[in-house]
């Protein structure tokens, strides 16, 4: 059973929508509360490589895409979560699963203000030391 089928079968309860707009690019959405479970399945059991995560503010809320790469076939699986609470957004951190996600989650926190619950080291990464606290530059409503 190939990777796509395994994902669809195992995460049936979590997946909200499934989209394949281009060859070798698959997007599927999950609820924010299920991201830890999804990431653990994709990383530990399927052996996909975590490439990067990207965060954006949309009118509906904060949207984060986690990109996992299947190096054997070249297919990129992107997991989309939508955090609807724009006042105090938060989501589970996936850094406890693999340390490679630590810096990108720090960057998403300092630029967008998304709180990552369970992140071991939520400190400033890119902004300078004299940047005021609580000022998240990539939010539209600053």
């Amino acid at each position, binding site marked *: 059973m190939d990777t796509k089928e395994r994902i669809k079968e195992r995460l049936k309860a979590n997946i909200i929508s499934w989209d394949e707009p281009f060859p070798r690019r698959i997007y599927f959405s999950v609820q924010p509360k299920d991201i830890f479970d999804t990431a653990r399945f994709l990383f530990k059991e399927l052996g996909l490589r975590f490439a990067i995560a990207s965060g954006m503010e949309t009118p509906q809320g904060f949207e984060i895409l986690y990109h996992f790469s299947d190096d054997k076939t070249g297919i990129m699986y992107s997991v989309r979560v939508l955090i609807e609470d724009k006042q105090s957004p938060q989501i589970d951190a996936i850094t406890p699963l693999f340390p490679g996600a630590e810096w990108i989650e720090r960057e998403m926190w300092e630029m967008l203000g998304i709180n990552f619950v369970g992140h071991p080291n939520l400190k400033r990464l890119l*902004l*300078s030391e*004299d*940047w005021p606290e609580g000022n998240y*530059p990539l939010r539209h409503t600053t």
Partner: protein
Amino acid sequence: MDIRLKALTRSIWAFHVSAGSCNNCDIEILDCFTPRFDVERFGIQLIGSVRHADALVITGAMNRKSVPRMKKIYEQAPKPCVVVAVGQCALSRHMFRYSYNCDEPLDKILPVDVYIPGCPPKPEAMIAGIMKLVDKVRSHK
């Protein structure tokens, strides 16, 4: 004119600093030292340490983290030292002028002597800029 200042115009040791550039201007600066343009015939050399520098060649838009470090580097260069701003980002921050991170252009932070526009500037433009500065120093003092 003082012979040492005259010697300075014929033997400029350049130290290249990047304040967060996209590296295009950095590559073009290195191009100046390739056989096609060869600025070593003017006496210009790329050196490794800032204490040997006669010209600080600065690229990149000044973001907030670079500003104190750039000031420190300018203090570490022995005077007389020339500051050359290469590329639009160093001149005026170019497309980053409304960014949250780039507050001031380079010439509000350091005294700039040569402005070389372009994105990235061609090596011919850089050589023309350096020669203009050399002529200005020779005719002034």
